[in-house]
Structure formats: structure tokens, C-alpha cells
């Protein structure tokens, strides 16, 4: 073994929908380099040891959000996790709380449905004409939502959330954070629409503030803050509907 290399055992959860009734574990001995990330080891397994292993990845720089997996029981972006911090044995499993399509690949369709339900785009009562020019936003206005716009949809927060595990209708941290991000945007006029969604079943009020989503977020988005801010905004919007003309839309 050359300098900077050591062997680590990777215990990887495998699942072949055509053959396996339930997921199983498989061990691999991998000669890892000191500067490797967990993803590098998985790619080594795929390229050099077992080509049947399935896992998702793309950018390798913690931007695309594709390579989220459970590493030693914690939801992590595998491209961001240095192997040096782990011991001789590393367990890699698909994200918790998600149906597993194959090996380390989870089904993201449910997440995409939840995401679109909060309308994560700028809603305007009336589209602005091109002649009117671009919409301006001050740094202070940007600062109000910037943190929540850093979400990369990696779904780690869903994997850590105990409410997601037990309440299938819960929209979940990332989707609420993104919806809240657009409601805070000074260019947006759709907060009332989103608040109506947030007051529905399985939305912000299902959150019991475990704060796990924020603990595992690789981009420091703090989804727990977004969810609980959205709670207050949804209540204020609802109450304003009783006392303000035309509801709380103004």
C-alpha cells in the first residue's frame, strides 16, 4: 500500500427490486486515499469492485444535492464527507424515510410533489411589462430570504425529520423553507396563496420543532427556522382575514 492509503471496510445497503425481498448489507474492502470523500470510495467500488452498485451523484462539490445518503446513520452529502473522519468501518445506506428504488437510490417523486405544492416560484398579481424594466431589490430585502434560498433540495432534512417518518402528508422542511423563501421575497405577491397551503393538513403545524433538519442541512439553510416562521406568518395571515378589508392580502 502506498503512502496516504489505508483499507476501510464499507458496509453498503443493497436492494435489487427484481431479486431482493428486503434490503441487505454487503461489505467491500476499499483502499482509500487520505484525501478521499465518501463518494470517492463509492465510485471506486462501482468502478473497480462491483459494477452493479447503484448510487446517485453529479457535481462532487455539494451543489447539486444528488449524493445524499446515510453515512454511519447520519444523513450526509457523500461528496462533502471526508473519509478521514471515519473509522475503519463506514456504513452507507440510502436516505432514511424514503422508499428505496435500488441500492442507495431513493424515490424522489414524493418529494417533488411536496415541493411543487408550496408554489416555489415568484407569483405576481399582474406580470410586469418589459418596458417597466427589472424589479429592484435592496440588499436588506435580499438578506431576509437569502439563507432559505441556499437550499439545494438534497432531501437530507427529510431523512432526519421524525415527523416525515411518521406523517406521510407532512410537506416537510425543504419544501416549506422554499415556499417561505418566496413569501419573503419583496418581488413576490403570493404569500397569501402559500399561507393557505401552509394552513392545510400536514403542513407547518405538523412540525414539532425537533430541529434535526437544521442540524443535518449541509448548506446551513436552517429549515426549522423557516418552518416555524411560516407558522407565525400563516396564523397572522389567517387572523388578518378577520379584521382587514379583503382579508390579509393587502
Amino acid at each position, binding site marked *: 500500500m502506498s503512502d496516504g492509503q489505508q483499507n476501510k471496510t464499507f458496509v453498503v*445497503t443493497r*436492494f435489487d*427490486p427484481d431479486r*431482493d425481498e*428486503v*434490503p441487505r448489507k454487503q461489505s467491500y474492502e476499499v483502499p482509500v486515499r487520505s484525501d478521499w470523500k465518501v463518494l470517492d470510495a463509492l465510485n471506486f467500488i462501482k468502478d473497480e469492485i462491483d459494477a452493479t452498485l447503484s448510487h446517485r451523484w453529479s457535481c462532487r462539490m455539494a451543489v447539486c444535492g444528488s449524493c445524499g445518503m*446515510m453515512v454511519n*446513520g447520519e*444523513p450526509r452529502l457523500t461528496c462533502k464527507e471526508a473519509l478521514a473522519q471515519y473509522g475503519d468501518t463506514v456504513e452507507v*445506506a440510502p436516505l*432514511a*424515510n*424514503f*422508499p*428505496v*428504488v*435500488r441500492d442507495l437510490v*431513493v*424515490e424522489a*417523486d*414524493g*418529494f417533488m*410533489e411536496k415541493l411543487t405544492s408550496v408554489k416555489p416560484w415568484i407569483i405576481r398579481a399582474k406580470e410586469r411589462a418589459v418596458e417597466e424594466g427589472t424589479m429592484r431589490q435592496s440588499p436588506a430585502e435580499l*438578506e*431576509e*430570504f437569502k439563507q432559505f434560498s441556499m437550499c439545494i433540495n438534497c432531501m437530507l432534512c*427529510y*431523512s*432526519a425529520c*421524525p415527523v*416525515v*417518518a*411518521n*406523517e*406521510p402528508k407532512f410537506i*416537510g422542511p425543504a419544501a416549506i423553507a422554499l415556499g417561505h423563501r418566496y413569501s*419573503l421575497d419583496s418581488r413576490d405577491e403570493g404569500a397569501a396563496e402559500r399561507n393557505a397551503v401552509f394552513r392545510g393538513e400536514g403542513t407547518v403545524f405538523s412540525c*414539532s*420543532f*425537533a*430541529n*434535526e433538519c437544521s*442540524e443535518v442541512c449541509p448548506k446551513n439553510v*436552517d429549515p*426549522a*427556522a423557516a418552518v*416555524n*416562521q411560516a*407558522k*407565525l*406568518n400563516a396564523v*397572522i395571515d389567517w387572523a388578518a382575514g378577520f379584521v382587514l378589508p379583503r382579508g390579509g392580502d393587502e
Partner: protein
Amino acid sequence: MSRSAHPRAMAASKPGSTRTAPPQLPDRFPFGGRYLAYTLFDLTGILYLLLGLSVLCAVWSLGSGEAVWNGALERHRSIFYLGFHGIALAALIFVGIRFFAFFPKAQPPRVGRVKPPPKPVILAALYGLWIGVTACMTIVLAGGIF
């Protein structure tokens, strides 16, 4: 991962064409790692339920005559009740500290045009209120006023 989450957790509304393995709970849930604090936080609800029942019993005793009320007071001096109230006090402090730690970030950047005060001010107000209410209750229960 060894225990199943809700079978429909994060499932799409329409099943896909590929058979999937059911979602699993995170390994450490509910008593491992950071989940422990969250689970204990939620479990304190049992203590509040018991405390509520205890208060109802005390009120019932109060309306059932002096002898019953004195009996209730005597019971509350027992080791069992003192221990229970000690645990309840510890739980209340734990819940208070956890709640106060999360409270500032749950405030929206602004409500209308009003912005919330900075985090240290919110924390100082919360702890100040807590200490103030506790001091008032202590004075009242000690017979200082009323």
C-alpha cells in the same frame, strides 16, 4: 437502519412502475444522539398530564371539606410527591431552556413593517419574564402577598 418508518413516508401519490423497499427510520431515532433531547422534550408531556391530574385532585379535595384537604396537603409532603415535583421542575427547566433556545429563530424577519428585536434581547426578555413570574409565584405561595 432496522425499523420501518410509515410505509407511505415520502411516497409519491401514484405508485411508480418499480417495486421499492419500504422507508426506514433513521438508526438513532428515538433515543440515540440528538434525537434523545427531542424525545425527552416530547415525553415531558406525560409529566404535564400527571401534574394536571394532581391539580384536579387538589381542587377536588378543596371542595370536599377541610379534613380531605388537609389529607391532600399531607400527601403532598410525602417523598413520592416531593420526588415527582422535583422531576417535574427539572422537566420544566429543560423544556423552558430548549424552547427559549429555538424561539428567536422562529421569529419572521418582519411582521408588516415591524422587525423583531435582536436575539440577545429576545432571550433576555424571555428569561427575565420567566424569572419574574417565578419570583411572583414564590412570593404568593410563601404568603408574602395576599
